[in-house]
């Protein structure tokens, strides 16, 4: 039987980032990916590197997101040098816009709570009123009453990121196999058997990075990966001239000029089809914030399913019953990619996750 050191199940942003990191340290890494039509958050996201209001009542997550944003420039530079892919990373800071005084008060309350909960670690945000905002963003509409601003936020071309990680991991020596859905993982006295209809592979370490598929795979290794249903929808407009050189939680303008709009969350449906009622709400709100986009043509609308835990935080864990088995998932796979590649990959390779990752262990879901 084929024997490998590390088998990663899942070739999305999570699996590819871990593979890139571990292959770069000289480890033998095999990535087994699913099919082309599997749901992939890696191909359906907005592409934000986002900190702002992430981690309310979850200071570890807030600081983890900030650290990821701080690591992004160095990570992007290395990946770009290795692959020649321009990731179009920009971190000009990000806004959350309020369309009513009530929304503004809520934003203010959330940002100050996060600042307090992180003991000032995220205290350098700004709350901006109408006049200050208009000085910075001349295209804002009259309905915007204010905004929060976080200087760590930014965006990246997430499809290029996906492509670059796949090029980069192979260049670093990892092996990638597509169309290898995994049916089960068996713990042996030493190591694991990874089994599919295509055959079986023995691995010394196995990393579950299968997104939504982790919910099924984790219990096979005495772990749990509770996930909730969360469908998102993104509107893509035709390319237009630059009008917004920062980013917002709900929209961004790409390097080529398209506007991506999306902040919806549906929990009642597993269907992948577009809900045009939701598109209309997204588009209307975006056009209230930036009236200049009102006449743009929409060229695409896509949907995707977030890989989301009940509390929204990532899940990083090594099986205590079967050491050497790890589960890795999160719904902020773009933002956190830098840390997955630079920090978590070496920890998995060394066989132990750092204590600083304990807040992201699944024991938080278990009633004690």
């Amino acid at each position, binding site marked *: 039987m084929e024997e490998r050191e590390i088998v990663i199940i899942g070739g999305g942003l999570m699996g590819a980032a871990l593979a890139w990191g571990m292959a770069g340290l000289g480890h033998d890494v095999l990535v087994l990916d699913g099919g082309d039509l599997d749901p992939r958050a890696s191909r359906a996201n907005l592409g934000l590197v986002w900190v702002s209001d992430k981690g309310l009542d979850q200071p570890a997550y807030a600081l983890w997101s900030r650290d990821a944003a701080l690591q992004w420039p160095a990570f992007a530079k290395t990946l770009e040098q290795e692959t020649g892919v321009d990731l179009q990373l920009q971190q000009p800071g990000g806004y959350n816009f309020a369309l009513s005084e009530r929304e503004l008060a809520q934003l203010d309350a959330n940002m100050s709570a996060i600042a307090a909960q992180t003991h000032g670690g995220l205290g350098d945000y700004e709350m901006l009123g109408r006049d200050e905002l208009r000085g910075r963003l001349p*295209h804002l509409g009259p309905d915007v009453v204010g905004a929060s601003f976080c200087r760590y936020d930014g965006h990246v071309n997430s499809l290029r990121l996906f492509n670059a990680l796949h090029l980069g991991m192979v260049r670093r020596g990892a092996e990638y196999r597509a169309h290898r859905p995994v049916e089960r993982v068996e713990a042996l006295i030493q190591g694991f058997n990874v089994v599919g209809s295509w055959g079986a592979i023995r691995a010394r370490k196995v990393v579950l990075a299968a997104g939504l598929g982790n919910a099924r795979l984790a219990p096979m290794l005495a772990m749990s990966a509770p996930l909730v249903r969360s469908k998102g929808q993104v509107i893509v407009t*035709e*390319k*237009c*001239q630059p*009008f917004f050189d920062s980013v917002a939680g709900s929209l961004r303008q790409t390097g*080529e*000029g398209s506007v991506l709009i999306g902040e919806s969350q549906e929990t009642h449906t597993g269907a992948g089809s577009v809900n045009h009622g939701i598109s209309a709400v997204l588009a209307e709100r975006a056009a209230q914030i930036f009236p*200049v*986009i*009102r*006449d*743009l*043509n929409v*060229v695409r609308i896509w949907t995707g399913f977030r890989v989301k835990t009940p509390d929204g935080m990532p899940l990083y864990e090594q099986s205590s019953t079967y050491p050497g088995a790890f589960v890795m998932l999160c719904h902020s796979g773009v933002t956190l990619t830098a840390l997955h590649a630079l920090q978590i990959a070496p920890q998995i390779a060394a066989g132990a996750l750092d204590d600083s990752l304990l807040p992201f262990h699944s024991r938080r879901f278990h009633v004690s």
Partner: protein
Amino acid sequence: MFRRLAPISDPLSFKFEGLALSAEKGESVALALLASGIESCRDSVVHGRPRGPYCLMGACFECLVVIDGVASRQGCQVEVRQGMVITRQSGARSMSGATQS
């Protein structure tokens, strides 16, 4: 590349880049351009390369033109009209609304 199967029976006239052209009443702007020998109607946004009507069913967004001052119209989705003034769509859509920079 294209030629009409039958001569125009119910003609109208329109302009493309100042050139006076004729079309069959009821056909789309994209078809009218192709039938007049115009294969390129816009320049791509990122690299400025010439592009023209392709799918003719509203999906590919390759046939964008400026029609009577309104930018980024899909030529295959608009019926050509008597007296229409059509120009190339060049560069990214301007943000002033209806006019093209």
